[in-house]
C-alpha cells in the first residue's frame, strides 16, 4: 500500500550524466568509505543468507547448528513440506505441525494477484495519464488535483468501507475482491506516467495529428510505444508492491483458495507453537516469498535502480 506511493518526485527529464568528480586526497578516506560500504552490504545480505541457511537445516539440527554458518546436514525436506509435497507423517517427522499448508497454492495466488493488478492498473493509469497530459477537456486540472489528493489518504481509512462493500457484494474471499480496489487505479501511477507523457516530444504526435490520427490512435500507436521503458518500470514497481501487500489480502481473502503468500506465511506462523516455533519451515516459506523478487532483482535490477534514479532526480 505504501510502496507504490513511494517516490512521487517530479519526473520531467531523463537522468543527466552522473557528476564525475575525483577528490584529491583519497587513499585513507576511500579505504574507510569502502569499509563502511562493505559493512552495509554484509548487514543487508546476512539476514537473507541466514534465512536460506536455516531453511536447509533439518529441524533436528536446529539447536546444534544454531551458531554454525553452514548446515551440517543440508536438506530440502523443509521446502517439500511447506509446498505440501510430503505426507502428513513425513511432515511431522521433519518437525512440522502436520497442519495443512500449501505454499504452492499461495504462490500461485500471489502471482495471479500481483500480475493481474500490475498489468491492468498500469494500462488503465497510462490511459488516464495520457488524457491528463495531452488532451484538453473541461475540468481536467480539478480532476487531476482530486486524484492526487488521494495520495494523502492513509490506506486503512478506505480499507474499512471497501471491506464493507465487498462484504455486501458477497465477494469476500474471491480473487475479485482481492484485486478490485487496486485493479484500475492508484494515484501514484497516474502521476508518474503523466509526468513522463508531458516530457515526450510533441512533434511526433503533431505529425500524426496532421495525418488525421485521432487522440485514441495517438495514445495507442505513438505515446504508448514511445513510453515502453516507464510503462515497464511501472508494471515492475506495481508487481513488487502487490507481491508485498498484506493487510488487504488478509482481511478480504484469507481463505485457503484465495490466500496469498504473505498471508499464508503469517497463518503458518500462527499455527506453529509460540514456545517452539517451526523455524526451519518458516524460513523455507520466507525463502519462497523472496525468490521471485530476487529473480526480478537479478534480471531487472538495472532497470529498477535506474527507475529510482529517474523518480528521485527531478
Amino acid at each position, binding site marked *: *500500500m505504501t510502496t507504490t*506511493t*513511494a517516490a*512521487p*518526485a*517530479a519526473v520531467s527529464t531523463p*537522468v*543527466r550524466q552522473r557528476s564525475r*568528480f575525483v*577528490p584529491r586526497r583519497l587513499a585513507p578516506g576511500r579505504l574507510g568509505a569502502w569499509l563502511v*560500504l562493505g559493512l552495509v552490504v554484509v548487514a543487508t*545480505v546476512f*539476514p537473507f543468507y541466514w534465512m536460506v541457511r536455516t531453511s536447509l537445516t533439518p529441524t533436528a539440527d*536446529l*539447536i546444534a547448528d544454531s551458531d554454525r554458518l553452514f548446515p551440517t546436514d543440508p536438506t530440502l525436506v523443509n521446502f517439500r513440506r511447506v509446498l505440501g509435497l510430503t505426507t502428513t507423517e513425513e511432515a511431522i517427522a521433519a518437525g512440522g505441525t502436520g497442519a495443512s499448508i500449501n505454499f504452492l497454492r499461495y504462490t500461485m495466488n500471489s502471482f495471479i494477484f500481483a500480475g493481474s493488478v500490475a498489468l491492468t492498473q498500469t494500462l*488503465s493509469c497510462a490511459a488516464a495519464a495520457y488524457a491528463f497530459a*495531452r*488532451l*484538453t*477537456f473541461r475540468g*481536467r486540472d480539478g*480532476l487531476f*488535483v482530486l486524484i*492526487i489528493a488521494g495520495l*494523502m*489518504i*492513509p490506506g*486503512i*481509512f*478506505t480499507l*474499512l*468501507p471497501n471491506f*464493507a*462493500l465487498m462484504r455486501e457484494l458477497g465477494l469476500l474471499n474471491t480473487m475479485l475482491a482481492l484485486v478490485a*480496489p*487496486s485493479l*484500475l*487505479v492508484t494515484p501514484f501511477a497516474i502521476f508518474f506516467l503523466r509526468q513522463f507523457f508531458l516530457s515526450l516530444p510533441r512533434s511526433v504526435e503533431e505529425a500524426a495529428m496532421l495525418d488525421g490520427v485521432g487522440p485514441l490512435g495517438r*495514445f495507442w500507436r505513438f505515446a504508448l510505444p514511445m513510453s515502453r521503458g516507464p510503462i515497464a518500470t511501472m508494471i515492475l514497481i506495481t508487481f513488487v508492491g502487490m*507481491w*508485498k501487500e*498484506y*493487510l488487504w489480502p488478509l482481511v478480504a481473502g484469507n481463505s485457503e483458495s484465495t490466500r496469498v503468500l*504473505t*498471508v499464508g*506465511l*503469517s497463518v503458518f*506462523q500462527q499455527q506453529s507453537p509460540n514456545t517452539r*516455533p517451526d*523455524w526451519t519451515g518458516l524460513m523455507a516459506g520466507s525463502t519462497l*516469498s523472496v525468490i521471485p*523478487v*530476487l529473480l526480478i*532483482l537479478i534480471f531487472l*535490477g538495472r532497470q529498477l*535502480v535506474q527507475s*529510482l*534514479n529517474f523518480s*528521485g*532526480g527531478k
Partner: protein
Amino acid sequence: MTRLLETSADPGRRRDSDDGPSGRAVKKPIRDRKEAWAAAILLLPALFGFAVFWIYPTIRGTYYSMTDFNLLREPEFIGLENFRQIASDPQVWSSLRITAVFAIANIVLVMVLALVLAALMQRLNLKTWLRSVLLLPWLVPNVAIALIWGWLLDANVGYLKNLLDSVGIGGVTFYNPKAALWIIVMISVWSGLGYTALLLYAGMLQVPAELYEAGSIDGASETRMFFGITLPLIRPVIALVLVVSFIGSFQVFDLVQVGYGNNPIPEVRVIYYYIYQLAFSFHRMGYASAVSILLVVLLGALTYVQLRIMRANRSDLA
C-alpha cells in the same frame, strides 16, 4: 501539493490552455469535442476505479465515523459520540505516541544513514549490481522480514541474539517488552535504508560536477562540500523523501502484526494495529473509522507543516 501542480506548467501545457479548457471560446471546436470524447474514454476505467474505491469509501468512512456499526446490523447514527470517546480513550493516545516515537526514530536514523550511504555511493561510483543488492530488503515482503528477524532474535537460539550476548549486549530478544519497539525501528531502518539512499543518490546525481571542482580548488574538505554543496542542493529530494517516509512510518503494520501476533504486547501497538484490531477483532467499525479520520487529519497537518518547513517547492538547482 503545490510542487506537484507546478510541474504541470511546461510549455506544452501552456499551449493547450490557449485553447481554453472552458470549452466555449475555442478556435477548433471540432477537434476539442473529439478530444473530450477521447479523454472520456481514456479516463473511464481509472475514474470508475477512483470513484468506487477511493471517493465512495471516503464518503462512507466519514459517515461510519459518526455511527455505531459492527458490520452485523445497520450503522446507527450517533453524531460525534465516537470522537468524544476518542478523547478519553487512553489506547488511542498511547498507540499514537508509540507510532510517533517509531516514526521519528525511524526517519531520523534512516535519513542520517541514507545520506551517508548516498554520499559514499556518489564518491565511490558504485556498480549498478552493487546498488541493486542494497535494494533487496525493500523488495521483500514485510511478512518475511518480520519472520527473519524474529528468528535472528529468537530468545533461545537466535543467531544475532547470541552474538549480541557474547559482546555483552544481553536481553535483545524479539519479545522483550523493553526492546520491542526499538527492534521494530531497527528492522524498519534496515529495510528502508538502501531504498532511501538510492533516492537521495539519484538527487545527488543532479548536482553539477563543476561545483565540486570549484569547491575542491578552493580547498574545501569532503565534509565541508557535503554540507555546503550537496545537502542544500538536494533539499527538495530530502523534503520529498521525508514527507513520504513520514506518511509511510505512520502506517507501520505488517512488521508488528506478523512479528507480535494477534495480541501484541502493548509496547508495540501502533495506531494502524489498533484501528485494525478495533475493526476486525472488536467489530467496532464506526469507532475504527473515527480513529482513522483522526489519523487522516493528523497526517494531513503534519505533511503540510513539513512541506512548509522544508519549502519543498523551492529548489536552488532549478
